[in-house]
């Protein structure tokens, strides 16, 4: 996609094709010879894993759409028919439902990886921002998909999320009505959500293309966060990273299969096996686990508009990270202070998720969880808007290695020196 091409068409047909549609050249340069830092670790295999997740979701989703009926009177039964009557319907649905959780698990690891190694910093700002866009599209797709079985959680989740728009002054209620196609969530809502749920994954696939394109211009970041300086610092993508990605993909698939075959309802909510009832709200409304931290923020604030703004702002904040981080060093390996704040941020995120899963007035060890959520939300915002800019200025980073090759192979490989490798 960038840089000089090393493709050399061998046969007459390849030369003919290369002059007309150089697709083999594109594949050769991006997936075969692409120079990749030689020190990528396990956390860099999640890009490939995520592509796999998207593929699985589209494949199983297309199959499910062949048997699903998007009608408020029939949807719930059609899902039960998929589970009981359709050949391997149970497998398709459990792969699709657990696949969504696996997709988010992988994307969160991928994002925290980017945060830790400073992958959002110049010249990779756009890769990060496109990634945030993909994350937003994923949340929208997952939300639409969760409504489709038309269970109690589907219905009330849809009600709560669409009602977020009513917090907007003046036009909020008109927007909600426009989204519903009625005066509350109903048949019209279900139909359009199905349409959008089918559309968005293909848009995600397109944006993923942009994500990878933007990645292939500067090339991968790496755990050291230093630039590639010589061909010695890299290895060709194939076979080195195709094999590494494949190995960790297999481990990931084992985890995935573990849930599908042994705990298919682990991430599910039993209330969703009850058909939607517009007159009865379940006692505890809980979103899917991957939205819990944002839900905890929303609930921790006793004002509707501010609560919605805080929740939305938590995601919008991610877009600005490339400019909020003032450090000249990318990787937290060489940032002793930032490293600690990073791990505290991870703890705060998990804590928010925990609070979001508990009932609104719950307390642990005598501490009301709403206050835990408030403090964790405060830290979430402070991490990006205060800690990132300030720590970048006051911190003294550790000494960076001279090159990737020197760090990996020892000094003897890069330059003659008697010192042992770190």
């Amino acid at each position, binding site marked *: 996609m960038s840089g000089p091409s090393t493709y050399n068409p061998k046969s007459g047909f390849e030369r003919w094709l290369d002059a007309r549609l150089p697709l083999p050249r594109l594949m050769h340069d991006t997936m075969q010879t692409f120079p990749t830092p030689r020190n990528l670790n396990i956390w860099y295999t999640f890009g490939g894993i995520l592509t796999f997740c998207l593929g699985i979701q589209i494949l199983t989703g297309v199959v499910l759409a062949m048997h699903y009926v998007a009608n408020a009177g029939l949807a719930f039964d059609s899902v039960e028919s998929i589970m009981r009557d359709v050949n391997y319907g149970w497998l398709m649905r459990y792969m699709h439902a657990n696949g969504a959780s696996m997709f988010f698990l992988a994307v969160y690891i991928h994002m925290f990886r980017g945060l830790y190694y400073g992958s959002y910093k110049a010249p990779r700002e756009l890769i990060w921002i496109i990634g945030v866009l993909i994350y937003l599209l994923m949340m929208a797709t997952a939300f639409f998909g969760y409504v489709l079985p038309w269970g109690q959680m589907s219905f009330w989740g849809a009600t709560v999320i669409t009602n977020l728009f009513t917090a907007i002054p003046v036009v909020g209620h008109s927007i909600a009505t426009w989204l*519903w*196609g009625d005066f509350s969530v109903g048949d019209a809502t279900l139909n359009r959500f199905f349409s959008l749920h089918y559309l968005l994954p293909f848009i995600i696939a397109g944006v993923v293309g942009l994500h990878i394109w933007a990645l292939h211009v500067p090339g991968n970041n790496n755990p050291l966060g230093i630039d590639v300086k010589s061909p010695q610092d890299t290895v060709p993508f194939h076979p080195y990273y195709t094999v590494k990605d494949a190995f960790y993909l297999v481990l990931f698939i084992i985890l995935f299969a573990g849930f599908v075959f042994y705990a298919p309802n682990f991430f599910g909510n039993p209330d969703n096996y009850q058909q939607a009832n517009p007159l009865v709200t379940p006692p505890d*409304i809980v979103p899917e686990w991957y939205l819990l931290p944002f839900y905890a923020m929303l*609930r921790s604030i006793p004002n509707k508009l501010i609560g919605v703004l805080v929740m939305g702002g938590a995601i919008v904040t991610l877009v600005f990270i490339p400019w909020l981080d003032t450090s000249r060093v990318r990787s937290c390996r060489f940032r002793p202070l930032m490293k600690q704040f990073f791990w505290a941020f991870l703890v705060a995120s998990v804590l928010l998720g925990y609070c979001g899963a508990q009932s*609104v007035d719950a307390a642990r060890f005598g501490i009301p969880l709403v206050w835990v959520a408030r403090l964790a939300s405060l830290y979430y915002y402070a991490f990006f808007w205060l800690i990132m800019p300030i720590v970048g200025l006051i911190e003294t980073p550790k000494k960076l290695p001279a090159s990737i090759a020197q760090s990996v192979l020892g000094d003897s490989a890069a330059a003659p020196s008697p010192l042992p490798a770190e």
Partner: protein
Amino acid sequence: MAATTSDAGTRRDFLYVASGAVGAVGVAAAAWPFIDQMNPTTAALAMGTTEIDLTAIQPGQQIVFKFRGQPLFVRRRTPAEIAAAKAVDVSSLPDPLARNLNLPDSAQATDADRATKPEWLILVGVCTHLGCTPTVSTPQMPEGDYGGWLCHCHGSQYDTAGRIRKGPAPQNLLVPQYAFLSDTRVKVG
């Protein structure tokens, strides 16, 4: 035709701008049907009124009906509940407006303006926070501290006149348009 040479713009410039402008208006006009098709259909708009028979409802009891796809609370209040609602100072409420579609928008949230007949409190059972259905509070099974309703989704509490007292909901529960046809029949909508 002689071409103009001044800086004021040629006939061709004018045609460019004019056709561009017409095109932009045309695109905007063509987009509108694609946006408006998502609004409620005429069938949804035509959802009529509901008539409710009140004879079976006992004092202290709430019955939930379905009205325009949403829950409708009809609560026959006990004298104690009415007295509790009347005792509240309106100026101390988070939302001092009546939110009663039978009254002007500026009506105050006094108990009399929330329930025309004090015994009968008729409300749209949709929490004004994010749309959940609040759970009714009874002396046997209290929900929240104010004797009215508690919304379990995000903890909003309403009093015995359906007024927001605590929690994230910004407004009192909505009082829909209704009219008593007789002592035991009410038409809502």
